[in-house]
């Protein structure tokens, strides 16, 4: 018997599918400790580690891809934080070893705050990733206009980068731009950008005359409604961590104010 002729079993909607709609709020709940500077550093550090490990567990490839950018930023951020905190701590005219302790404590606090924000951001991205950029953005419950801008914008980034490299090469060949640090590069910047902008929009206008003018194309590419609610096995755990965070915050508030 042909299996395609068998009656389809209706899809059972898990209770978690309803909670899926609340996931933007779940990520905000995980970010909530950032708004409370009095919270213990250990709690923020633990939450950072939990979110980071979950992100790694859900999709290690994405985390590995973004990690070099984050580490490069941390490499420049840490000394600058140290300088500002040193200026802050030493202006209180306290003894030398207390100044160093003060600098270490304050710098660690800022780094943990940054780490927590970044790990929640990574967790959200890894959990919402659906195999491709198109599916991931279309899977988010955001207005179609925002999805259109995000998807086309992501596609155009590559076009801009390629055109920028080509235009820079052309300007360098004519001796108008320099491949090294040179004051003339400042003056040539608007002209280079103008050429790039013009080239990419010209290409977009050509596409608007052909493929992009079709309503059917857009309906297929970026659907009006997201019919399928997708839940992952990690959703329940993330939901529980968010509940635990909120519970801890409420308990902390009670401790602070009663």
């Amino acid at each position: 018997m042909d299996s395609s002729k068998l009656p389809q079993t209706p899809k059972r909607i898990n209770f978690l599918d309803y909670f899926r709609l609340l996931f933007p709020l779940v990520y905000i709940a995980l970010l909530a400790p950032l708004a409370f500077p009095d919270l213990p550093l250990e709690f923020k550090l633990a939450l950072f580690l939990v979110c980071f490990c979950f992100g790694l567990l859900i999709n290690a490839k994405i985390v590995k891809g973004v990690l070099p950018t984050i580490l490069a930023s941390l490499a420049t951020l840490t000394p600058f934080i140290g300088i500002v905190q040193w200026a802050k701590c030493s202006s209180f005219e306290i003894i030398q070893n207390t100044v160093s302790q003060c600098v270490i404590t304050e710098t660690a606090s800022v780094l943990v705050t940054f780490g927590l924000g970044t790990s929640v951001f990574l967790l959200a991205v890894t959990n919402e990733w659906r195999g491709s950029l198109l599916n991931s953005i279309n899977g988010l419950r955001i207005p179609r206009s925002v999805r259109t801008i995000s998807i086309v914008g992501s596609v155009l980034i590559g076009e801009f980068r390629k055109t920028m490299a080509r235009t820079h090469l052309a300007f360098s060949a004519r001796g108008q731009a320099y491949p090294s640090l040179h004051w003339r590069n400042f003056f040539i910047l608007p002209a280079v950008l103008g050429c790039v902008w013009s080239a990419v929009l010209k290409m977009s206008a050509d596409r608007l005359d052909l493929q992009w003018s079709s309503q059917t194309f857009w309906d297929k590419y970026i659907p009006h409604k997201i019919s399928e609610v997708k839940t992952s096995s990690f959703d329940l755990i993330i939901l529980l961590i968010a509940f635990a965070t909120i519970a801890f915050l409420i308990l902390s508030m009670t401790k602070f104010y009663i």
Partner: protein
Amino acid sequence: MPPTTSNVPTYILAAACVALNVALGTLVYLLKLPIYLDSIGIMMAAILIPGTAYRAFSISSIVGIVSFIIGGFLVNPFLPYFIGTAIAGAAFGAFVVRGRVSSLLTGEASLGTFISKTVLFGIGWGIIAAIVSAPVAVYLFGGVTGSGTALIIAFLVKTGQQVLSSALLTGLAVEPIDKTLQMLCAIIISRWTPASFRKHLSA
């Protein structure tokens, strides 16, 4: 805003502004320039999006939010925390700059008018950006955002200023210069918008 083919050109323009914001890092790297140009697309969207100022504000805000989230991934992880600055820039562009730079876009303005308007709007945008970004920089990053301005903040703190006022003063000194340059770029690039694309936009 129902997504029909009639407003597709508007979305393409907004998407191009997002891509410009994110991809600019590549050009800044190729030209070895010591600047961050992360908001040109927001101002261009506010100036070029057809329709009312409210529509321009909403779309340029989306441009700011999307570019700062994607930019947080590809360029600078601090960017998503400064979405408020992007929205403030979109509001300034849509309600203050939009409609007042038409002569600059068509090339009818004299050199004096061009310079004075660009500098005036650039300074205004810079002041707003400094006021909005200072509290975020202080409460989340201890006054530091990964740029060399941290040294100025440290100097001001050492002279007895609070970290918040130091970050604000530094922002007020640096942001107007950066935003004037971005305003200049936004106006010049907007003039390069091809006639074929403008035709689609006004259809």
